[in-house]
């Protein structure tokens, strides 16, 4: 069923394909991000309940959602690497992890900025932020594990195993943190409850979601190409590439 994907498992081919994708995705990502952020932060009407500060959700929500999306992508790549024994999929994990971790950090910071006017403090142990914090720990674990071995291949394989175990735990952690939150905060309405959202606010949010998705894909392509070069540096095609005159198209 997936035979047509076979050529893409070869590092050299994937290097070229990622290069082509990256050239398309990167400008699209920045453009969409620019439109979405400027529209969302600047031109949407103020919310009657939360005033102007709510606008940060245009960055917070996409970052949070794609931080989890990135982790799932890592787990899918790990699964592919395990089942079909494809090395490039393992390298993809090291490519995605730091990007996902950065998205998580952005979500945490923006969540904190959003909360300050509401709670009066920069941090509150509510369910979503706590989940994001734990997600950050999971990312740090994967990155630390990958870099802890003298042999790079062992590190890649260990990180892919951890990513898969983590993805099984992710819903469990999410559910238990939410339950913990209701237990300890009683019946207070969670500040991040999604109110029914007006279309004028919805569109910039969707555009920002798309932007973050494109950014994730583009940055992954970039990092994956670097990883391919690193892992294949002993091969002749990499050597030929390195010795090409610099004005040739890479």
């Amino acid at each position, binding site marked *: 069923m997936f035979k047509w994907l076979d050529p893409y498992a070869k590092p050299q081919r994937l290097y070229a394909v990622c290069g082509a994708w990256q050239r398309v995705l990167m400008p699209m990502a920045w453009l969409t991000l620019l439109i979405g952020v400027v529209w969302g932060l600047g031109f949407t009407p103020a919310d009657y309940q939360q005033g102007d500060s709510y606008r940060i959700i245009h960055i917070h929500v996409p970052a949070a959602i794609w931080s989890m999306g990135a982790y799932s992508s890592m787990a899918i790549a790990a699964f592919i690497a395990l089942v079909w024994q494809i090395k490039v999929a393992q390298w993809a994990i090291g490519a995605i992890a730091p990007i996902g971790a950065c998205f998580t950090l952005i979500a945490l910071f923006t969540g904190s900025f959003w909360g300050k006017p509401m709670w009066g403090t920069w941090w509150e142990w509510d369910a979503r932020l706590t989940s994001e914090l734990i997600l950050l720990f999971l990312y*740090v*674990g994967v990155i630390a594990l990958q870099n802890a071995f003298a042999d790079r291949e062992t590190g890649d394989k*260990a990180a892919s*195993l951890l990513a898969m175990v983590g993805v099984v735990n992710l819903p*469990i952690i999410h559910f238990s943190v939410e339950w913990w939150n209701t237990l300890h905060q009683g019946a207070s309405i969670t500040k991040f409850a999604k109110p029914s959202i007006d279309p004028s606010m919805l569109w910039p949010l969707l555009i920002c979601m798309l932007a973050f998705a494109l950014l994730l894909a583009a940055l992954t392509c970039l990092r994956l190409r670097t990883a391919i070069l690193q892992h294949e540096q002993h091969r002749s095609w990499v050597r030929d590439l390195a010795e090409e005159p610099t004005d040739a198209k890479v």
Partner: protein
Amino acid sequence: MSIAAVFMATFRRDLRLLARQKSDWLNPLFFFLVVLSLFPLGIGAKPNLLREIAPGIIWIAALLSVLLGAERLFKQDYRDGVLEQLVSARLPLPAYVLAKMAASWCASGLPLIIVSPLLALLLGLSESAFVAVVATLLLGTPLLTLLSALGAALTLSADKGGILLALVILPFYIPLLIFASAAVEQAAFGLPYGAQLAIIAAMLCLALALVPFAVFKALKLNVG
């Protein structure tokens, strides 16, 4: 059957080693008691305060203590080359892994359960809370052992072992911590806590099903 043979041989051998190296099970036990004592020393020893935070600190001390004992789980066999022999001869590694985890639970989980009456004394636990502590420890310490074995297997040939193991595995302990401490808290108020125990039991079953396979893969990749 080869699986039973390897399991029994490994289990017996590990119990023998535990009998010889008493520090392997005494150290985590005393660590548990020391960490427990740090909380009243650091926070204040008011009886009401202690009773309130008791569920949390018992479980935090328990999980740290199991984590401490985790690193030695496969290290010796890895360093001596025993693991290499098992992988090369394609002996059933899951049987070896289960036996090691069972022996490890006897070293780091069982002593905690045996010592739990002491906790009731130190932290002023009520009778119902104490029963809940024992129940959660009975169900929870095997889960702690399983997860710490996973961490030990993943970080086996890594340079920075100990701290890395903790960093990797602690997030996975969080759901257990939440439900176990909640169960004890409910018991302290006289409320039913069967639901929390059921969830812990479910997590244990899931871990029993998935973790040995993951540990087996992690061991193979560290030996290769």
